[in-house]
């Protein structure tokens, strides 16, 4: 039996498709992101395989050595900061019960499916989602270093907005001077500390910590190091501070999501 040929004019075809595109555009992101998560989940294996090829091409020395070194450095920095905080608290003799950063927290280890780290975007898709207790706003660690927060969740996948993403803003403090400020992503694996007066003493190499946030993080954890510190050209009374993460987020193969007070 001959197939019935449906004739649609080009103008009509364009109109209908454009209408579909506009509907897609104005549908809330919370609904349409299911398509993106579905793609990441269905094609998880080829995406991970492609990413491992890309990582292998970049690799110059055994990655495990680099990872272990970075991991230990971040761990030592976190312990140092914790110790410093403990000293402060002992001095105050407040008598209140203190909690360590991960006390009562559950770390959900997740594989990285795709990583997009460039000038305009810093994002990971991981293979853990709402079914594993992952929720929006939770902190994500890579090699004991805060690399970002959960921005969107699906049932079995989630998106991590890296601290270097231009839309990311996170409260931080510079360890040596104990100043709290907002750090905004600047793309290309770096971030900027905003509105810091030149009265404060900041130098290259100073460690930067994510501030504790009730319900999400119970203690300060390292986020990166100051790699550039110069006078802001537009506002000479302020610093122009560049921060880079203590680990290379592009080469991370797995991360840990911090879930405080899990339901069990």
């Amino acid at each position, binding site marked *: 039996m001959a197939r019935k040929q449906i004739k*649609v004019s*080009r103008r009509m*075809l*364009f109109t209908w*498709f*454009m209408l*579909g*595109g*506009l509907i*897609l*555009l*104005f*549908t809330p*992101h919370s609904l*349409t*992101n299911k*398509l*993106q998560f579905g*793609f990441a989940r269905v*094609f998880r294996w*080829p*995406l*991970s*395989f*492609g*990413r491992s*090829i*890309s*990582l292998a*091409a*970049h690799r110059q020395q055994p990655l495990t050595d680099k990872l272990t070194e970075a991991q230990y450095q971040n761990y030592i920095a976190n312990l140092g900061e914790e110790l410093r905080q403990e000293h402060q608290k002992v001095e105050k003799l407040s008598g209140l019960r203190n909690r360590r950063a991960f006390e009562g927290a559950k770390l959900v280890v997740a594989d990285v499916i*795709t*990583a*997009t*780290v*460039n*000038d*305009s*975007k810093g*994002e990971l898709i991981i293979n853990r989602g709402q079914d594993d207790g992952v929720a929006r706003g939770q902190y994500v660690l890579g090699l004991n270093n805060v690399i970002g927060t959960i921005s969107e969740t699906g049932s079995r996948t989630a998106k991590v907005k890296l601290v270097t993403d*231009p*839309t990311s803003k996170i409260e931080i403090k510079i360890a040596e001077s104990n100043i709290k400020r907002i750090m905004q992503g600047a*793309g*290309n694996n770096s971030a900027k500390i905003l509105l810091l007066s030149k009265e404060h003493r900041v130098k290259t190499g100073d460690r930067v910590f994510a501030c504790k946030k009730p319900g999400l993080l119970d203690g300060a954890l390292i986020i990166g190091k100051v790699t550039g510190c110069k006078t802001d050209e537009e506002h000479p009374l302020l610093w122009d501070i560049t921060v880079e993460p203590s680990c290379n987020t*592009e080469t991370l193969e797995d991360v840990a999501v911090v879930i405080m007070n899990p339901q069990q």
Partner: protein
Amino acid sequence: MRWLRFGVFILIAAILQASVLAGLNIKPDLLLVLLVFFAVYCNTAEAIITSFAIGFVADIIGSAMGPYTVSFGLFGTLLAYLHRAVAIRKMPYQSAAIFITCLLAGTLAYLLTFLKGTSAVHSVHGAVIFWTSLYSAIVGPFLFLPSAWWMHINTHRFSHQ
């Protein structure tokens, strides 16, 4: 048009773009190169369908749904109509078509993403779009031959619709 081959081809390109090329600082936009390829070597109706389909796939691997469907669909269709008047056969013309389409489609997609609220205004975006356009224009014409082989399209047979 072999639609099954087209589907597989676009899927492979999307996976390559989202995995292998995602780790590179300097990268061409494979999906946009294919958009220009289909706009040049297919008839106008097929070019409209492929442009929107490629835009949809670009959205799936992008940050929000919609911006690339609209911008790729619009500029793919315009290119297909332009191709009816001006033949884009030689490699320099193909490079120029890729460069201009990438600049325009990239800018519109960025503005629509901003409109949707999933992106912030950032000075680096302009540079990213420019360099992506340039690399796509350099690499693109060389991908046309393998694309034509896979899609069983005879690039020598060329007729204005």
